[in-house]
């Protein structure tokens, strides 16, 4: 449970506890940054925490629009909030 997972968020190396969601890892790496940008150009953070609102979506390993709050971090993941 306390094993460390290593991943990269916007190119920056990050280490998190096992069981941490990608959404939480983004907040841990850059507090307040948010997951993505709305069509009107506003930075957004997750709202619902259960995969409904989509405000947590990020690109993971090149796949766009993945739900960060529903995805546990895994070793070697490449997460982008700016894609």
């Amino acid at each position, binding site marked *: 449970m306390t094993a460390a997972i290593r991943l990269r968020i916007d190119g920056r190396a990050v280490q998190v*506890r096992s069981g941490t969601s990608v959404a939480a890892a983004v907040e841990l790496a850059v507090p307040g940054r948010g997951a993505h940008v709305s069509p009107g150009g506003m930075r957004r953070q997750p709202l*619902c*925490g259960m*995969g409904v*609102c989509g405000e947590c979506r990020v690109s993971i390993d090149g796949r766009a629009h993945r739900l960060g709050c529903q995805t546990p971090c895994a070793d070697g993941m490449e997460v982008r909030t700016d894609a």
Partner: protein
Amino acid sequence: MPEADKAPALRAGLVVVGAGPAGIAAALAAARDGVDTVLLDGAPVAGGQVWRARQGVAAEPVAQALARLAQAGVRVLAGTRVVMPLPDRLLLIDGPEGARHLLWARLVVATGARERLLPFPGWTLPGVFGAGGLQALVKGGWPIAGRRVLVAGSGPLLLAAAATLRGEGAHLAGLADEAGPTAQARFGATLVAHPAKTVQALRLAASLAGVPWWPGWRVVAAEGDGRVERVLLARGDRKRTIACDALAAGWGLVPQVELGQALGCASGARHGAEALLVDAWQKTAVPGVFAAGECTGIGGARAAALQGEIAGHQVAAELVSAPPPPRALSRALARERHFAAGVARTFPMPDRWHQRLRDDTLVCRCEDVPWSALRDQPDLRSAKLATRCGMGHCQGRLCHDTLSTVMAWPRLPARPPLTPAPLSSLLASDHPHPSTEETKA
């Protein structure tokens, strides 16, 4: 070549969608009676919202349930969502193994509820979350220790969320519930008839000792430069401003009816929200399709488990001639319904919500559609076509809920895909090959 052509189709006597209290109970009851059962859930770990995993570790009731499910031979597909129902009792599902077809003889829809998240000025600022939403995020490792959090909105979920946040080290700036002191006192009196719930409520209250509690106060706006820094509350003409790093705001729960509706199940208003209609055996209007738990109306985890158990037994009775559901389950369910009705009366959806919206308040967060573009539209379909409201990632789950209530507009039917799915899975929907099953019936 569509992915699902390569992956053989699965089949089961019973397929249960949703692994919360209702789905787990349904799968267990049916499997123990000898029905070949598949249980699937979109989350990486089973449990649903009420028994949510913490740091990837299943909650205690779920750990026990998973052991029982394994013992009963239930196949659990985690991280797997229904993309769409197909004709001939097939579901198109998408999960870690890619898109696949799943053939069912009986189906239990146990898709649960989501938080009612309503728009107000500033609700799109970073640092504004659902109340259950922030609770869920924190269980996934979202850092909250030392941060000042205001919990607001309405309903008993606020207490549970506040208790979790405090337990993780948040500094609670206060708890504002729109239900006034009189309504709350009346609700407290009905608790007496439900001793187990009284104990639960007292335990929650004790864990929140010392937190400022403002019954009857509502959220007016969240403000801040680039993220929330303060929240304006009001009660009548009185106002107060609370400095905080986060606002956790929710107004109860709404049933998730989309899969049921896509299957053709009838729905109707229950406690002020659209819910799937079922009979005493949890059967919907569609042959072979059952529904159980919060998607049939908000009733709590205990009611959901009872409904699931009734559905599971009924499925087993139909498929393998097992005994019908025990009558004691229906009696226990009636008691839970009495309690749920009290909750719904005490913490209703606030009326005249449109008065809380400003011209520039974004009602549709996905497409950034402001209230000013929506309020003169005649109905939901026109609003959608004219403004793209509800055409974004959430597919209207947030804004259409709001608008159907605030504007009294009839809801639009749920349209597949029910979950944003890769094109390869959608292509797979044209090529069902149920004859290539890999498992026994």
